[in-house]
């Protein structure tokens, strides 16, 4: 006997599952194409596939322009991450701990560099530096990267801080701890993984940034600038090899940070 009204079954997952497979294919197929092309034994970055070679990787390892730009990128990203994370941490603390005039506006204003397109930041700072008579260099690029890195670090740190149980801090003060001790011993361990996540995101964005960098860089190229200039002139599979190496390095970096976050939760 069948009941008159049967509760409906949730929709069968196979249809959704195949849609999901298609979407993952769409997301990752271009990356797969790049990785495959980096092994292509052909002088141009295009099909047909003429056989497997590692030559483009050897070319990359011997390419001084790529090496110099990679070094510049690492310098810029490291400095920008340090600046952005420090300032983001301070800003998150101010918003979490104190009430002050214009707090909501302050929060929104800090997010402007990632809400507005990068080109606005780029041309505004270019006009400003030129008005001040400052020459463009890797230094101006770093400053630009701190600007959009700040909200990137600020977001996750503030989100974690707002979950911090205030009673822990009060207990520490009641036990006679000084503010510095409370911060190091109680608050920072709680927000550590959010700080790492924010810093990592700021580093990744800085390392790959094109638009702001394009307007603020002087003679020295970062890696994306070097790639940009080559994409418009001589396009060899070496670019695909560089992108594959970057992908491998960042995957490793992210897996490492996941591991740190994981051990954080266990402890």
């Amino acid at each position: 006997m069948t009941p008159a009204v049967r509760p409906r079954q949730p929709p069968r997952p196979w249809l959704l599952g195949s849609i999901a497979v298609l979407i993952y294919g769409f997301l990752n197929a271009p990356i797969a194409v790049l990785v495959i092309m980096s092994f292509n034994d052909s002088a141009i970055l295009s099909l047909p596939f003429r056989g497997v070679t590692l030559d483009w990787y050897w070319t990359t390892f011997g390419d001084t322009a790529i090496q110099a730009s990679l070094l510049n990128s690492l310098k810029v990203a490291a400095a920008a991450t340090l600046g952005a994370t420090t300032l983001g941490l301070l800003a998150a603390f101010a918003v979490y701990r104190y009430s002050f005039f214009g707090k909501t506006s302050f929060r929104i204003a800090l997010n402007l560099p990632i809400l507005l397109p990068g080109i606005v930041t780029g041309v505004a700072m270019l006009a400003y530096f030129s008005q001040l008579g400052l020459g463009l260099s890797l230094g101006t690029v770093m400053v630009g990267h701190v600007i959009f890195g700040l909200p990137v670090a600020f977001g996750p740190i503030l989100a974690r801080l707002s979950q911090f149980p205030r009673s822990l801090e009060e207990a520490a003060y009641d036990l006679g701890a000084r503010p510095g001790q409370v911060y190091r011993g109680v608050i920072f361990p709680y927000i550590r993984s959010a700080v790492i996540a924010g810093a990592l995101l700021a580093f990744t964005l800085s390392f790959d940034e094109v638009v702001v960098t394009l307007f603020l860089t002087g003679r020295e190229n970062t890696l994306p600038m070097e790639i940009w200039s080559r994409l418009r002139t001589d396009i060899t599979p070496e670019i695909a090899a560089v992108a594959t190496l970057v992908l491998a390095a960042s995957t490793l970096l992210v897996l490492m940070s996941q591991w740190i976050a994981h051990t954080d939760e266990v402890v």
Partner: protein
Amino acid sequence: MNTETMSVARMRRRPGLQLGLYGTLLPPLVWMTLLYFVPIALLLIYSFWRLESFEIVQTFSLDNFKTIASNAAYRRVLVRTVAIALGVTVIDAAIALPLGYFITRHGGRYRQLLTLLVILPLWSSYLVRVFAWKIILGYNGVINTVLLSLGILTTPSQAFLYNSFAVTLTFVHVWLPFMILPVITAFEQLPTSLLEASADLNARPWTTFRRIILPLVMPGVLAGSINVFALTMGDFITPSLVGGASDIMLGNVIASQFGVSYNWPLGAAFALVVMAIVFSGLAIVLRRGALETL
């Protein structure tokens, strides 16, 4: 908490209160003011200046905005940029919703891995991801090679690259993770009990989606939408790599005014137009209550 401990805590903290506020608030505030807010204000001022025989004339005028409004080519670029940005946003939202639902409902213990696979494309170079579409869509590209070998085409087609289709497709791809991530967060906060209640009350899946799921994940979709919309509004890399000559966008115009065309005041006015459009989008999103996800 009893009043005694509270007063002790307050006593301990009071001397440091002002110092703590200024110590934490001032460095980011001063940094952002001197290096971001003042430059943005300067950009605003620039847009009211004008260029006369390669010299910037620092007097107030609305010439740049008149140029933008009266020039038919500029108006077309403006309309095309907004249309592509809206189209890309809608397509990305339509892709992100089923995927977000799938990952949170059926992901099980692979949920983290599935989320990681969404972010994976972001770890290779953005420029190279855009360029990958050139390899896929081009004359000797992946699609042409496949269609030729299947016998569907007899000669390679040039219909796939250097047009607004290629621009839209590439944008949809490169910004998709920025839509999917907030949508996943929104789905994670969706209580399963509501979906079960809806099913128990005999609602069809489509009704459950429209009446229960969509309103509850809307903040995530809106947060993702403003990301995707703003990123598309200011981009000039994608149109210059995979677009044709008639596919240039506002970003290309700004870049060229600050570069080869060397008319910074006009470029600043265009940047201001982009800001105004993104701000109106932001205002709509904020009114719909997506501030929490900001």
